């Protein structure tokens, strides 16, 4: 490689380096999160100990409720995806549709499914206490046998 070509290659590499780094930084500058260029917002907010969590519960024939596994709720093994699926269904008024999807995946040991928002004191719950402060039911649907 001659000097002229070498110099061109060096400028090319400098240019690509600056471009790639500018691209990586750009979401933070623009305040727009995307993929794979992101603002890296994992756990960046302050969180209080009272939290509203979107989830789904199974209701048995006696009316007792129990939480449903990730696979049943959102066909995933990631709780972040599961909660985001339920939250987005509630926010976009698709809770009924999600409820039927969950009911189709749920076993026959429950009689109905409810898509809910629950308010918890997370520190109390994490340390084994009774934490439920409130529950709003956004959809309820039967489990077909």
């Amino acid at each position, binding site marked *: 490689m001659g000097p002229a070509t070498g110099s061109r*290659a*060096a400028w090319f*590499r*400098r240019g*690509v*380096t600056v471009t*790639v*780094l500018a691209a*990586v*930084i750009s979401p*933070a500058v623009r305040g727009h*999160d*995307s*993929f*794979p*260029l*992101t*603002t*890296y*917002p*994992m*756990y*960046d*907010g*302050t*969180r*209080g*100990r009272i*939290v509203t*969590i979107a989830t789904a519960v199974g209701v048995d024939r006696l009316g007792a409720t*129990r*939480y*449903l*596994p*990730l696979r049943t*709720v959102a066909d*995933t*093994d*990631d*709780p*972040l*995806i599961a*909660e*985001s*699926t339920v939250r*987005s*269904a509630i926010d*976009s008024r*698709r809770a009924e*549709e*999600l409820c039927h*999807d969950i009911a189709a995946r749920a076993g026959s040991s429950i009689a109905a499914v409810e898509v809910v928002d*629950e308010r*918890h004191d*997370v*520190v109390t*719950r*994490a*340390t084994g206490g009774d*934490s439920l402060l409130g529950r709003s039911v956004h959809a309820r649907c039967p489990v077909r046998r």
Partner: protein
Amino acid sequence: MTADDAGHRAAVSPRDEAARLPGRWRPRVDGWLLEPAPAERLAVLRVLVGLFATLYLAIRYRPFLSLADASASRFEPVGVLAPLDGPWSDQVLVVLFVAAVVLGVAFTIGAWFRFSGPAFAGALLLLTTYRSSWGQLLWIEDLMTIDVLIVGCSRSADGLSVDERRRRRRSGRSHRAPREGVGFGWPVRLAALVTVTSYVLAAVAKLRTSGLEWMFSDSLRNHVAYSNVRLDLFAGASSPVGRWLVRFGWLFPPMAVITVLLELAAPVALLGGRWRDAWVVAMWLVHVSVAALMFVVFPFPLFLVAFAPFYRLEAIPAWLRAVAGRRRSGSTPGSSL
């Protein structure tokens, strides 16, 4: 000017001389960014990121392929897929996924790399972007994807590869010719810069969104408690260590301060030596703690692949050859006596 001054000036190399000129940052930056490296440095990075990404896809096949059954109403395309009107058909998803795994194997072993390198990088970008297009961005996959893009678009199969072996066979050479060049070092440096930038951005995000409160309040404790309660509410197993530690609220502000300071200090990893090692160990321990306390796993740094560009990776094959050489010489009849 004294004779000593003149003698000293004569001993200064042209590169040092250039460093005294206006804009002296450039030779220093170039000296680091464009430092020639052996082909094996980039080749080892190719093997590491290729192996990691291919295994990641193969092990996590279900979350990728289950998107075929996802409700189209949830589809919110992001990144390069933003122009899409709707989800891919099941066939497109399955074919792309299988192709990505096959290309990932070719990428890792360095076979037909001129094609398999960019093709695997492109396929991985499409698949991971698609997975993040259902209402939840998956930050655990972005650094892996960017690293594969960097390595896949560079000359990373000029060493330790099927392509190199094929070239040697054609030319009739039996030994590896040691190769060195800027083109083998620069992509590794670029990957290192991206890793460092990502950590600094993570700290900036915390400070920008929450200010100092993120460090000096109960926020981190509540995040840990929240992650565990969320697992509970989806009938999953939560972290016994995290739940136990939540009792000790005073522990969390110091942990938060250390986390943010370590993220901001990421550029010290570029200095090399003990600074780099200390930062890598400390940051790795942060990821281990997050996994232990919250069951939130960032596999790319947890398996150290994210930190690989900070090191002279050519030492790995050299060490493996030395071990193999010792074993061979140890198994000769003379030495076994």
